[in-house]
């Protein structure tokens, strides 16, 4: 059997996979987002409120957190219709900051000191199941109508719309579904970390999720899985360099970006030149 240390690492790996897959969906519709930490925070807080305060089972808590984050995603998704590229990246970044600052000031959730004493409900089989289900959904999506619509929108919005793709539905839908996934990921995270505070969901978290997706590559839905494995396991494996592990990790990131600019699993198709 694996010891508890590696079990914990594997749980984080699966959670990162869930988060990355949920960001992969909007990104594959051409919506780069640096605000996923915000959706994750909403999911984490709401699910903790459901399980700890209301005594709901974890699955119900996750559903609550996911729905709350998904709703927020739909609200943010509408402005995202009008803007794209760098503008969207910065808008989502601003959204993430607003969510963090909200929880930093919101008294019922403990402001900066956060919520502690969360029950440990996230288990390895459960997160693996969630990650696998998401992967399965994405795989089914790819060759379904919705997946083809997503790719069409990413290639050329105007052409896609001319072909009868409902731009609003596809883009807002992808964004809201992505937020829903991030909310579920946040709930899973909270019930494993056992303590949440606003600082855990800041810009750095958003950047990390973004990093996982982009590092893995946008060519296939296995990209986020590979990215999550690299970003979760590498710092653990680099423990032998001890104090300099972020430096080594940072250097490896630069090398990856330079040697495989389109991602580790860069597919046949270059995404967005």
């Amino acid at each position, binding site marked *: 059997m694996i010891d508890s240390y590696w079990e914990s690492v594997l749980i984080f790996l699966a959670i990162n996979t869930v988060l990355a897959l949920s960001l992969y969906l909007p990104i594959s519709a051409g919506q780069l987002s640096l605000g996923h930490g915000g959706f994750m925070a909403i999911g984490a807080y709401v699910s903790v409120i459901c399980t700890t305060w209301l005594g709901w089972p974890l699955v119900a808590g996750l559903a609550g957190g996911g729905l709350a984050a998904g709703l927020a995603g739909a609200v943010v998704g509408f402005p995202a219709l009008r803007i794209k590229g760098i503008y969207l990246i*910065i808008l989502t970044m601003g959204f993430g900051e607003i969510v963090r600052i909200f929880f930093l000031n919101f008294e019922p959730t403990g402001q900066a000191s956060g919520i502690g004493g969360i029950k440990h409900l996230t288990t390895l089989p459960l997160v693996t199941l969630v990650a696998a289900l998401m992967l399965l959904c994405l795989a089914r999506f790819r060759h379904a109508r919705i997946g083809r619509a997503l790719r069409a929108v990413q290639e050329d919005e105007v052409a896609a719309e001319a072909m009868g793709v409902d731009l609003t539905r596809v883009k807002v839908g992808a964004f809201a579904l992505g937020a829903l996934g991030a909310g579920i990921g946040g709930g899973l995270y909270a019930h494993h970390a056992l303590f949440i505070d606003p600082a855990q969901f800041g810009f750095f978290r958003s950047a990390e999720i973004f990093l996982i997706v982009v590092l893995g590559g946008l060519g296939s839905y296995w990209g986020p899985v590979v990215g999550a494995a690299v970003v979760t396991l590498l710092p653990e494996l680099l423990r032998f360099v001890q104090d300099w592990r972020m430096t080594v990790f940072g250097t490896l990131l*630069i090398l990856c970006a330079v040697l495989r600019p389109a991602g580790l699993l860069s597919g046949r198709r270059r995404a967005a030149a």
Partner: protein
Amino acid sequence: MLLQQLVNGLMLGSTYSLIAIGYALIFGVLGLVHLAHGEVFMMGALIGLQIVLWLHAGPAVALVGALLGTAALGVVIELTAFRPIRARNGPIFAPMVSTIGVGLILQEVATKAFGGEQVGFPHRLEPVTWRLGPVTISSVQVLILGTALVLMLALHLWVTRTRMGMAMRASAESTLTARLLGISTDRVILVTFAVASALAGAAGVLVGLSFNAISPFMGIDMGVKGLAIMLLGGLGNIYGAMVGGLLLGAIEVLSVAYLASSYRDAFVFAVMILILLFRPQGLFGVGQVR
């Protein structure tokens, strides 16, 4: 009261402007986002602090040292994290990965070299305060506002009057055309990085002087805010970034004075999102959204 708040806001805003200008310069030429720009700002503050501590020099020497140090840092970042990706025609998000890497390295190096705690400049630099009618101004405020304005004026003259500045504007217009006209765009980009980073370094020293809170992690918030301001002023528009920074500084200080102070940063981002929705090209941007 209102006047006093405005003065404080302009002081804060002038440091925002310096950072946002850096983003605008780099975005103007490359069309890319530099996610470690906040860490360059942080390094400027730390370099300035070390100069004051070890050489017992005044703020002027610290400022010059930070300018030179961060300019060199900017050149290194361009050569390692941007140029190789450009050479391979990487997608726009590849430099975001590499600069996140650069940011992690700079944070850890700063923590190792200078310790992780918040530190401030020594209090030898006693501020003198003057009263001008209803407004109180300290010598530190004058120094900050003065330095920021001088740097912005210098930048304006550099961009409009010198060959290199014109070459930079030409490259920002179209790198390809600039290259066809005989401009060495690689050199222009290198100089642009040096200038942008030096401005961030100067802002670091100025913020260090005014808030006495220098830490390896001070760059994160500032980086995010600077990026928002650049967008507010219109992507890649340096004059927009100047005005946007001052404006946001004023908004922030006024929102602290008249609204809930703990939500100041949220307020700033909400204003940014609203402006984005109604004027996606930014306050001072012209033409189409790219």
